[in-house]
């Protein structure tokens, strides 16, 4: 290792992800779906405080995640989980884990395809685009976890500029500040029992990093990077929420689908307008990254469940995981997502599933690691 090489560069040099990539992972995994649909759930101005509060809660959850990623068990990968939970429990948990992952990724992907179908190709079935998205994701997954993880930099650069487009809507004449009132209502409107879990689910995604502990280069400041990513996500959500609220107002937002996408239509450049035609395809880079990530995690889960985690890695597992993934997405999209009612049901499923995973995975692993540490301390004494 070179003498003068900086700490964050060591990871890349050694075939690992540097800890500094953590903020990109957190940020892009969090914004992937809800950036398009969240303002549809958040209808009232006071909910800006809900974004901030849930953002703080997410911060604490990320502290647990960072704590887990620092443990020796996380660095050991499969062997670490076996040490923590035992081989039988690890293999048993891999099955529901794979199912949850499949469901989570299927809903996220189908929702993006729904938006693309709605905005770009109303006459083309959304499932026509699925094989293309799958092939590109499979190609990225084929490069392996290390390179697929590095792709987060491109996913970030390829999609972060979209938020900048909305800044103009925060200022007059586009913004009508009276629409932001009341910021402190006497009687909060809206179903908080749905809104708060939806917000929590909007910040989910980083829980999958818990299974990639051995890919990160050792670094003491992991939480700092994860927290930075979370703060950026909260900032982005606030920008999107304010832009939509200041432009449309609560009453109009209730009547339209995808208010974020609708707002982009108001941007005019000298040569182009209707920029949603550019933004929706550009957003695809995030889904390619995410789906490749899911396929790789699915492969690992299948290997663990089948008891092949210790055997040399064979490309057949990745192919099997990729085909399983596309089959599940297709079946859900073809048979169980055919009308608006089913669409809303799946969004609800996703809110509770992703929210539960985000709440449970880091805390469960951190607790299990702490329990094991206590037990081993007791054995030593």
């Amino acid at each position: 290792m070179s003498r003068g090489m900086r700490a964050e560069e060591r990871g890349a040099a050694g075939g690992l992800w540097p800890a500094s990539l953590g903020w990109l992972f957190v940020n892009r995994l969090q914004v992937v779906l809800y950036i398009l649909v969240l303002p549809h759930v958040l209808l009232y101005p006071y909910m800006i405080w809900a974004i901030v509060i849930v953002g703080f809660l997410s911060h604490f959850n990320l502290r647990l995640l960072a704590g887990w990623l620092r443990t020796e068990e996380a660095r050991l990968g499969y062997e670490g989980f076996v040490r923590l939970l035992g081989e039988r429990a690890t293999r048993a948990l891999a099955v529901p884990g794979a199912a949850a992952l499949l469901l989570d990724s299927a809903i996220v992907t189908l929702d993006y395809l729904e938006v693309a179908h709605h905005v770009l190709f109303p006459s083309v079935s959304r499932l026509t685009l699925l094989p293309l998205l799958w092939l590109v994701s499979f190609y990225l997954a084929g490069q392996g976890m290390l390179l697929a993880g590095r792709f987060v930099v491109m996913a970030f650069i390829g999609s972060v500029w979209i938020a900048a487009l909305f800044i103009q809507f925060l200022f007059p004449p586009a913004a009508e500040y009276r629409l932001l009132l009341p910021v402190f209502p006497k009687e909060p409107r809206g179903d908080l029992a749905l809104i708060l879990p939806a917000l929590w689910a909007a910040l989910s995604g980083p829980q999958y990093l818990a299974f990639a502990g051995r890919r990160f280069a050792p670094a003491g400041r992991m939480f700092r990077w994860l927290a930075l990513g979370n703060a950026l996500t909260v900032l982005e959500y606030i920008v999107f929420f304010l832009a939509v609220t200041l432009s449309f107002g609560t009453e109009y937002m209730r009547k339209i689908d995808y208010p974020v996408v609708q707002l982009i239509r108001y941007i005019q450049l000298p040569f182009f307008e209707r920029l949603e035609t550019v933004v929706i395809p550009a957003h695809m880079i995030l889904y390619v990254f995410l789906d490749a990530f899911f396929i790789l995690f699915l492969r690992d889960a299948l290997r663990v469940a089948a008891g092949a985690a210790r055997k040399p890695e064979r490309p057949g597992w990745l192919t099997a995981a990729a085909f399983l993934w596309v089959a599940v997405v297709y079946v859900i999209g073809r048979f169980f997502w055919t009308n608006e009612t089913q669409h809303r049901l799946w969004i609800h499923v996703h809110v509770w599933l992703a929210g539960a995973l985000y709440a449970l995975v880091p805390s469960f692993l951190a607790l299990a690691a702490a329990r094991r540490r206590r037990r081993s301390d007791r054995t030593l004494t």
Partner: protein
Amino acid sequence: MRWLARLLASLRQASGTDGEREKPGTAGVPARRADAESLKRAFQNIHDAECVEIENDRLGKATLLYIRSLIDIRQLQEFVIAPLQNASGADLRDTIHAAHLTEMDSPEQAETAAFKGAVIVLAGGRLWSISLASSLSRAVEPSKQEAVIHGPQDSFTEQVENNLTLIRRRLAASSLKSERFLVGGLSHTTVILLYVESLTNPELVRIAREKTAAVRSDAIFDSSHLSQFMEDHIHSVFPQFQQTDRPDAAAAALASGKVVWLVENTPFALIAPITFFDLFQSPEDYIHRWPVASFLRGVRFFAFLFAMFLIPFYVAITMHHYQMVPLDLLFVVLESRSEIPFNPFWEALFMMLVLEILKEASLRMPSKSGQTLGIVGGIVIGQAGVEANIASNLLIIHVAVTAIASFLIPNYLMTNSSKLIQFGLLLLAAWLGLWGITLGLILVLIHLNGLTSLKQPYFAPLSPFYGADWKDTIVRLPLKRMSRRPAYLKPANPWRFGAGSGRPERKG
């Protein structure tokens, strides 16, 4: 299958001379007794091969074998034949005082040396070679491929030793190491591997050495041939070795911790590892003031994107996304296209193919016909195409801008790579509009993400991300701020400024 691969490798090692590294210090090892007749048989049916026998009382009989067209006859007479005729000692070393007198190990080695311009002397059962290659070389001229207005004007020639001299003059340090390889069973091409020992990552040198030694080909005539045998990804459209005919560019690469190959009979050196972003850099970037250099680099990147995306974007907009065009501009587009019987895809495909035909023709035609080609291509085909309603005015503008933009890419191989990507994007644009173009772009990005050059990441400093390397990627910051060498190279000495640099010259 591994045993088969091992067996094949051992057979190759046993039989082939390809990619063989020259062993230093073999001269002086007692040679096995050579058979003059067997050596002569190797030179049969070669009309310019000559055999001269000289009898001398003290030295005995000496047989000289050489290829007349490859050697300097005046030097042969002066430094070999005359001293042999008048020899006063019994040892050849006392008789011939040529600098390149080397004892050969085997007749095969002697044969190879003869075809490189050496005279083979068979005396007392021992084989010697005396290098008397005739100097058939052009002068050092300004670079044609990477011409600059300011800065050094010399460029490499076909003479590998001259090229080495041009680099050594720039890096006068004992740490600049050069290793010689003979590559090609028929061509016996000399390849020189260069690196700076004190700063280049030893792992890079090891990989470069192994790759060079593993080249299996009968004939290597050009540095491009060599690079194709050493590439990590043979199916990629992106060049993984940088080719330069500028000694200053090669020396700068060595000083930053890269490895350079010089190939005999080629005026282009190979540089590796490289990144995608290196292919947009020009030696002139380091001559301009840094804001100017950064601006020009930015223009080059912009031109590259323009060259790749402009026509596919036009096709996507006109075929799928009319709603994106403001009304005033839409009238212009519709008017321009109203008489065209083809859809935008066929129109664009036809014009892009015509452009490529014109470019290829301009490269192959004699230079004096170039002007005629410009007139025929630019005016007759363009103007007539619009008047005959084969292409719209708007598309002609797009094609012309694309052609000019593609010339801004400093690397010729990269320019050609972008053409292929452009055709792919055109297909996707016609099929799926902007969604298709984005899909194609993501595919290219994923491909670049996985590429390596000499096993180092090709898309660094973006993926993997090296923050410090961005000082000299799209922008070029002041040289004083670039104290560290590129981190992705993992150099043995990462600091450019430090002990040993800027030292005053010692006199006396």
